């Protein structure tokens, strides 16, 4: 049976109709077939025609139907009715009152402090383009951001610096040698086609090397696990670069024709004395092993060295990221089959048209520039409390949080809560009454992705347009983002720019002149273009048009133009002898899935992993609760004694996704929230949150 027919046969069994859509439980947005019967989702599968997810789904996506029926969802707009800092009390208001409230506050803030005093942040930018047009273009705030500083900020910065590309993909299917640094892509299991492609490549003989302090799900599948000390990836990668250049294993014609600064980099490595012996002392990996891995990598083609979040959880992560990617550059392994892939983006237009003369004029530069982070690809979130509490670099009075929950997700929870309580206007655009929503002035209930439309870029190798369609009725009075932005716009006197009645009106505008019509997209669910390779010789959107081993942007910012190794900021000591690290889980996405009882059944709490030698030293037993204590705070969490972890560090699996005290009945009170253990540490180059800059001690929790 062809997989194409399978969906219709399954739908017949279920008595359901199929709607082509996509899932955005996580930012990988797999195209789906949603089975709907009597206004309810009864099953979902991957859209088998789309190249993204090969007909499959992950646990999170498969269970996501629950969100469309969750009784804990927000059902109507709510306005805070008591002072901040107290147990919050909210009263139900009409949408009209809610829009008036927000519009009045926006006008007040703009009049007193300027439009730049309002900041917008979101999780994975679904439909946020409407809020951006409202708050950016019309209102005039330059501060429209997402959530990257809590995510792959250092990767994004490294890719922009080197390749002028914001988010390269991984062409695992054609790889013969893959080296992953602190990247647990099989464990997080988000890009399903990437997971499948890596496993297929492995079955065909691709060698997988995982460099990670933790024996992750990805390390488990590796041919070789390199148990590196936390926060030292940059040292090992730089030493590997040195070996490749010293042994003349680099691609001479590629580095000469396509790269800026190869000779200077070679001299830089030698003058800094970045040798395998030097890196061995730092990383705990034997020098001859570093040499062997460098030779293997350089001699294997096609090859790929890739990072995601792990290396960026330290203050030295920006240059660690550059160094890991430079292995690809030196060996000429960029954007060819089996390499890091500088994907093309699909042509998608704006859903609304804002004429130049209607645009608001910000009085100040965007926050990341004003804060002194010219290389930050997104807001340095951990500096936002300074703007709100101290007016540095300039006052911030209003904050919109859309599908993001900084009280849970940002380091140093105490300070984030304090920040929320000092806002003139806190607006939560949410589907649950989250921990951050509790600290807001007004809570506007959004529809879940099952109840709204969206057109956006697909997360696949080639250019791709994907469509999310409303498949069931909204919960309560919840509205999609495009209706909420429209409602606020009308109260601000900008209704004419949000002139749509149905979502199809803006949908057609976004697709006008593109490769697919809205009608066809509704039938197919996606459009996928050709996968192209070899963009590097044709020129890249970097300042020099080449791969920038020497970064002019770094030099201009007063930073080392070539990557350097610096030690991370927080080093364990006698009193706090262990480094805190974090890793993700496959069955939960960040902070958004913990009210789903089907996922909580599979994994209902987080835990801390500790190597058996450390466990013996500190009297920790497997499965028992332990106290993890930093100089700042302590948590009680279940311990798992493992072999697969570098001694001297502990790993909290899904640190800030558990320990909810709001959100909903299934989420509340399960596991421990680890983000108040750390002080605020910000990457000095990219502005990333440094979640692993924390030292701790552990001891058994007394029986309660």
């Amino acid at each position: 049976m062809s997989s194409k027919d399978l969906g219709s046969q399954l739908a017949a069994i279920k008595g359901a109709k199929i709607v082509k859509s996509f899932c955005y439980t996580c930012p990988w947005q797999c195209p789906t077939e949603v089975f709907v019967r009597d206004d309810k989702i009864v099953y979902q599968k991957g859209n088998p025609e789309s190249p993204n997810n090969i007909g499959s789904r992950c646990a999170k996506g498969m269970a996501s139907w629950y969100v469309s029926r969750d009784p804990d969802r927000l059902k109507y707009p709510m306005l805070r009715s008591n002072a901040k800092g107290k147990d919050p009390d909210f009263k139900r208001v009409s949408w009209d009152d809610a829009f008036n409230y927000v519009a009045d506050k926006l006008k007040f803030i703009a009049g007193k402090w300027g439009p730049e005093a309002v900041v917008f942040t979101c999780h994975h930018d679904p439909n946020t383009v409407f809020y951006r047009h409202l708050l950016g273009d019309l209102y005039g705030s330059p501060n429209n951001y997402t959530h990257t500083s809590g995510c792959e900020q250092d990767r994004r910065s490294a890719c922009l610096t080197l390749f002028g590309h914001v988010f390269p993909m991984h062409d695992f299917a054609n790889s013969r040698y893959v080296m992953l640094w602190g990247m647990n892509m099989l464990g997080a299991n988000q890009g399903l086609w990437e997971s499948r492609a890596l496993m297929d490549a492995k079955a065909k003989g691709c060698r997988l090397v995982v460099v990670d302090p933790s024996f992750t799900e990805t390390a488990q599948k590796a041919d070789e696990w390199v148990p590196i000390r936390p926060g030292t990836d940059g040292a090992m990668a730089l030493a590997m670069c040195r070996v490749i250049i010293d042994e003349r294993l680099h691609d001479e014609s590629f580095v000469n024709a396509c790269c800026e600064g190869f000779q200077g980099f070679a001299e830089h490595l030698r003058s800094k004395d970045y040798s395998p012996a030097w890196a061995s002392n730092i990383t705990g990996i034997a020098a001859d092993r570093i040499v062997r891995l460098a030779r293997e990598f350089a001699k294997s083609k096609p090859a790929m060295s890739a990072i995601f979040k792990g290396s960026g959880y330290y203050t030295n992560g920006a240059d660690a990221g550059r160094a890991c990617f430079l292995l690809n550059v030196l060996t000429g392994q960029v954007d060819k089959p089996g390499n890091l892939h500088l994907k093309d983006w699909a042509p998608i237009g704006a859903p609304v048209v804002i004429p130049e003369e209607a645009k608001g004029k910000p009085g100040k530069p965007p926050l990341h520039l004003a804060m002194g982070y010219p290389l930050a690809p997104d807001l340095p979130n951990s500096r936002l409390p300074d703007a709100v509490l101290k007016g540095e670099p300039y006052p911030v009075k209003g904050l919109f949080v859309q599908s993001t929950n900084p009280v849970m997700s940002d380091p140093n929870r105490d300070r984030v809560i304090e920040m929320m309580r000092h806002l003139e206007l806190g607006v939560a655009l949410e589907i649950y009454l989250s921990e951050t929503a509790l600290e807001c002035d007004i809570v506007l209930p959004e529809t879940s992705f099952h109840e709204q439309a969206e057109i956006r870029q697909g997360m696949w190798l080639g250019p791709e347009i994907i469509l999310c369609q409303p498949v069931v009725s909204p919960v309560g009075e919840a509205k999609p983002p495009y209706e909420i932005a429209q409602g606020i716009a009308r109260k601000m006197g900008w209704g004419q720019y949000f002139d749509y009645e149905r979502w199809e009106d803006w949908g057609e505008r976004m697709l006008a002149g593109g490769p697919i019509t809205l009608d066809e997209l509704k039938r197919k669910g996606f459009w996928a273009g050709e996968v192209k390779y070899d963009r590097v010789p044709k020129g890249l959107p970097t300042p020099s048009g080449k791969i920038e081993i020497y970064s002019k942007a770094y030099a201009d910012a007063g930073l080392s133009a070539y990557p350097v190794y610096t030690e991370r900021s927080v080093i364990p000591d006698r009193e706090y002898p262990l480094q805190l690290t974090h890793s993700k889980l496959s069955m939960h996405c960040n902070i958004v899935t913990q009210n789903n009882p089907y996922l909580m059944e599979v994994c209902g709490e987080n835990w801390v992993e500790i190597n058996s030698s450390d466990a013996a030293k500190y009297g920790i037993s497997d499965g028992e609760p332990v106290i993890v204590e930093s100089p700042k705070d302590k948590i009680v969490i279940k311990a798992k004694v493992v072999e697969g972890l570098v001694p001297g560090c502990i790993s909290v699996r899904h640190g800030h996704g558990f320990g909810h005290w709001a959100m909903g009945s299934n989420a509340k009170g399960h596991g421990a929230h680890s983000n108040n253990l750390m002080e605020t540490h910000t990457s000095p180059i990219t502005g990333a949150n440094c979640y692993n800059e924390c030292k701790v001690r552990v001891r058994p929790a007394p029986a309660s």
Partner: protein
Amino acid sequence: MQHGFYFDHKRCVKCHACEIACKTWNEVEIGPRWREVVKIETGTFPDVKAMNVSMACMHCGDAPCQSACPVRAITKRAEDGIVLVDQNKCIGCGFCAWACPFNAPQLSATAGKMEKCNFCQTPGKERPHGMPRACEEICPTGAILSGPMTELARIGRENAATRLGGADMRGMPALMIDAHRQFGPDGDE
């Protein structure tokens, strides 16, 4: 002809999608887990190994649960060997759970009856043979297959042969001994 599952632990990444697919397709409530992925770790740092196994009812040839059931609620279907629990007959005594070495039968707290993987034969939602089971259909890495055991054995042999000739066996001696012919039940040739 006996039908069953083929599971490739080398491909399983412990994502648990099979569990949720099973629950959603068969409309299983919270509590009973017809399928569960478990991880087994061995070795000592830094030489660690781990294996993931997605476990469900094995639909055994000689099913201990069937023998243990006092009211004959458990039957082995003649045409495909699938082991089924008749919910109308089940008294929820739990003997089958004690007898099963794989923890396959699961007690429903609401119905007070045993339930387990029925090879996607839930009444009203039966998947015909030739169609993938829900767990198999959804697996991102293609670790689960279902079908007649003769077919699965052929696939298993092919996979083993591929490994012998391919990358998975790097470092192994390039020597294959035909053990069956030399040391099999018939002795030396």
